[in-house]
Structures are given as structure tokens and as C-alpha cells.
């Protein structure tokens, strides 16, 4: 596994629709993950308003001493973010790959209901391949 601790997907109203943790570090229960999601949703919105220039699209990277948080927001307002080891490489590219997996295995699935939690076997399967360490390393090329 790459240096990723967890992955969140938040819908445009701030609801957590997907959460997965990788490894023991930073594991949290359902309530905590929902809280983190809605907190991040608000902070992201605040960051847009704090910006001294117009057209700011919100926080993309949060660096702390023990972790990095990379966030990608699509123009529709769907947010994808990963929490990873400090300095982990290729996270923007990984988020793009995850976004594409979401458009394929979630949105093209007739049994997925928009804005609802994601329960799609093929998404899980392809996601677990995409976050493999050697796969992520390939994203750098």
C-alpha cells in the first residue's frame, strides 16, 4: 500500500458518500468520519471566501507535521480527498484517477442513486488496485 491513510468522497452538499481507511494509523469510527467530512466541507468553503483574490477554488493541500491532506473538487462540487504521509508523491494524479473511477464505476451504475453512499463492488475493486504503491508510483511518469 502506498503512503495513503484514508480516502473520503463528499457530495456537493457536504454529505460523506465514501470513506475508506488504509492501515491502522488514523482509523476512525463512522461518526468521526462523518464529522471530518462535514468539517472539511465547511473549511473548504471558508477558504474560498478568505481568499484575497476572486475565483479561488478552495484548499488543495493541507500540510501538517504528521500528515498531508490533498483535496480535489470537481466543478460540480463533488470533493475527493486523501490523507497521506507527509510528502507522499503523486497524490493529485491519484485523485484524478479516483475521480475517473468514480465516473465509470459509480455514475454509470444504474443501481447507484445520486448523492447517496457508494456501495459498488467494481468501484472498490478498481480503487484497491489504483492505490497500490507501485501503481501510484507509475503516475509520476
Amino acid at each position, binding site marked *: 500500500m502506498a503512503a495513503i491513510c484514508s480516502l473520503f468522497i463528499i457530495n456537493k452538499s457536504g454529505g460523506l458518500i465514501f470513506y475508506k481507511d488504509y492501515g491502522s494509523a488514523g482509523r476512525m469510527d463512522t461518526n468521526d468520519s462523518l464529522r471530518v467530512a462535514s468539517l472539511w466541507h465547511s473549511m473548504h468553503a471558508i477558504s474560498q471566501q478568505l481568499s484575497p483574490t476572486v475565483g479561488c477554488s478552495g484548499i488543495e493541500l493541507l500540510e501538517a507535521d504528521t500528515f498531508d491532506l490533498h483535496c480535489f473538487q470537481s466543478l460540480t462540487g463533488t470533493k475527493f480527498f486523501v490523507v497521506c504521509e507527509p510528502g507522499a508523491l503523486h497524490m493529485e494524479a491519484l485523485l484524478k484517477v479516483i475521480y475517473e473511477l468514480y465516473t*465509470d*464505476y459509480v455514475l*454509470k*451504475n*444504474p*443501481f447507484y442513486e445520486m448523492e447517496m453512499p457508494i*456501495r*459498488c*463492488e*467494481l*468501484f472498490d*475493486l478498481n480503487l484497491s488496485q489504483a492505490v497500490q504503491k507501485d501503481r501510484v508510483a507509475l503516475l509520476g511518469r
Partner: protein
Amino acid sequence: MIGVGKIKQYSNVLDKPLSKGKQEVSLSAFSFLFSELVQYNQTQVDNIAELERRLEDAGYSVGARVLELLCHREKGNRRETRLLGILSFVHSTVWKVLFGKVADSLEKGTEHEDEYMISEKELLVNRFISIPKDMGTFNCGAFVAGIVRGVLDGAGFPAVVTAHFVPVEGQQRPRTTILIKFAEEVLRREARLG
């Protein structure tokens, strides 16, 4: 409704040369359309068996038109009259036109004389679809089963056609098998032809 009917003052479709079928569109366009077909039909049914039947019916009308189109374009208005001929027509020609490839395999059932199976490791229509656990063995390949039934029926080979997930050893994902069970009259005729 599509591609049939008399010449009308409104329409010039019959004057137009038949397309060669080489135009392409994105897989995404098809996948979203198919997904919506399934979603719409879900709103029209009370249970999974009905959903299966409606998808099969939708496929049937595609199959009937595919047969018309291909007999005209690829076979100079001739069609297969023998069982193996029509099966290989479905497995190769039809599959290639609709799904861009020949089907992975065509086999005869080992237990029943009247059964044949076309199998695909990953059916195009199922590419992005995960079946929820509460839907059991439901397979959106019912649409493709309907297409096959439409082709066979139109060619004079009535059959019951169904789609099934079949686990494959060493693979995470099951393949889809389209099971074809021919009507008795088909086998009798075939035996007569020798």
C-alpha cells in the same frame, strides 16, 4: 417503429444509402444510455423477474433489427438456415457489430442436447455495473439475452435465452453466460435436414 414502415411524404430514410456501420461513438454515451434504460425499467416493475423480462423485451427489438440490418449488409439478403450456422452468426457477426469483438466462446451444453452457451468474460453492458446484494443473481445481460433471442427468432430459430453469472476459477469477477435453449421444433427440423 424503427427502420420499418412505408415510404411517407415526411421521410427519406429509405432513399438514404444504408450506412456501412463504421461510425463510432463513445462507450460512455452507450453506458449512460444503457444505465438509464435499466433505471427507467426499474420504475416500471414490482420485482426482479419483471425487470429481467422488460430488459429482455427491449433487447429483443434490438435483435430483430440487427438481424434485418446484417442480413442485408453483410450477407446479401441471405440468412442462415442451419443451427450451427445461425449460432456462429450470432457469436461472430452480431457480436462484432454490436460489441466490437467476437464472443469469447460458443459451446454446446453437456447435459442437454438443445442447449448452447455463448460466454463473455466481461459483457460490454456489464462493464461498469455492480449488482447490489439484495438483487441476488440478477444480470443486466438480460438485455443481451433478449438481443440473441430477437436474432434467433427472426431467423426462424425460436428459443428461450437467459443470462447468468458464472464464477471463473482464479478470477475475482464471474463471467456472463448467455444460455440458449432451442424450441423442440428447431431440433426436429435440424434432425430432418440431417
